[in-house]
């Protein structure tokens, strides 16, 4: 039976993530944990998160999770969600600049103020927006292109290589709603809050062997 570790570093609606995984998991064991050895032992790992990146990275360091997460992200199916996606990058502009896990090349940037002043778009980007799939990926299986997912964020991900973007969303401009490489898939939106499409994506993750 597959064991999914949901990383608990004191931030985020872990209960929702766990419940959604259990809902689609077909008997998968979902462990909410902050123990590095459990993350290393699990078959797959979810790094969720809401809040600010400074607190997130501080907690990951304090709980000595950084090395375990880097190792897991290099070896098994790994899903980052929202702040958990941004934490996988090299760097975030939030909180006067924070070094992140460096699993994927790129950085998180604040939505520019002109988005609101010129285009009248609100920040945070909050609600249901379409995601254009960039090529095929096992986690997109059975999900219609341009399906809507639930977003809530003020920072967006700018991957260092355009090819890392596995999904693109338009909010004044096009940004990477998903970045993926090898066994790592990370979403800016919340699949656990995105009803059918989100649950389908999580179901695909639970079945995924990490290859593309």
């Amino acid at each position: 039976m597959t064991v999914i570790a949901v990383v608990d570093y004191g931030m985020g609606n872990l209960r929702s993530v766990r419940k959604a995984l259990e809902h689609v998991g077909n008997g998968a064991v979902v462990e909410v944990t902050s123990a590095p050895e459990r993350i290393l032992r699990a078959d797959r790992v979810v790094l969720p998160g809401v809040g600010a990146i400074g607190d997130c990275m501080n907690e990951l360091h304090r709980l000595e999770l950084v090395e375990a997460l880097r190792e897991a992200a290099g070896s098994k199916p790994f899903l980052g969600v929202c702040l958990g996606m941004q934490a996988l990058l090299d760097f975030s502009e939030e909180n006067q600049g924070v070094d992140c896990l460096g699993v994927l090349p790129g950085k998180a940037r604040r939505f520019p103020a002109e988005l609101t002043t010129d285009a009248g778009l609100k920040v945070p980007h909050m609600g249901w927006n379409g995601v254009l799939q960039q090529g095929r990926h096992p986690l997109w299986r059975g999900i219609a292109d341009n399906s809507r997912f639930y977003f809530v964020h003020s920072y967006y991900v700018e991957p260092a290589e355009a090819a890392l973007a596995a999904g693109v969303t338009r909010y004044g401009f096009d940004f990477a709603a998903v970045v993926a490489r090898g066994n790592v898939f990370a979403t800016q939106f919340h699949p656990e809050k995105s009803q059918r499409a989100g649950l389908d994506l999580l179901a695909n993750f639970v079945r995924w062997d990490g290859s593309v």
Partner: protein
Amino acid sequence: MSLAKRIIPCLDVDNGRVVKGVQFVDIRDAGDPVEIARQYDAHGADEITFLDITASSQERETMVHVVEQVAGEVFIPLTVGGGIRTVADIRRMLNAGADKVAINTAAVSRPEFVAEAAERFGSQCIVVALDAKRVSKEGEPLRWEVFTHGGRRETGLDAVAWSQRMVANGAGEILLTSMDRDGTKQGFDVELTRAISDASGVPVIASGGVGNLQHLVDGVQLGRADAVLAASIFHFGEYTIEEAKDYMAAQGIEVRR
């Protein structure tokens, strides 16, 4: 495709039961928040808001259980308001599965509470509920003030300035209720909605006064609301969420289907 305007049904919950119940199809227990939430989810609600109107603080714990049960079955965003006064209250609701909390009276009595909450949990989950009443006289420039305690207590605070202060403190969204329109079925106060939406820069949920589907359209097109919240038109089966979305889409508003 762009960001969809949201439709949010709102349920008043008293000691774990939905007040007055709902009367749309397929409901076995009209007071069960879990079953009602499941139905609204199936009908295409974009989020669900629960307002806890439980009077006694001892019974507040029942709301936590309601949220836990709903969040275990309904995978769309959930907001909880009513009685949110401390960081511990917020943590309890978020841990139970709520995505956002709405802070109302506590924001007025202690504005720095909003800053503390946003600092600790992030702006994305901090909604400030703003109840406003029109105070300008006929012929004067429009002006609204913030009221608390269901519109009974005046604060003297200018609603537009207050919304900006709350955003500066870290509010990620504003749930704006017109106390003049609430319960009247005469439509949103679209001037109020527009004033707050233009001034605040964060998403605004319009609330108070919805009587028909054109009111939802007006809230978005005239009021520039990012989301519309309604209770009775959905609860009593006058319209379904699908009908509301069809109507809005026919008027050129982007909705999730």
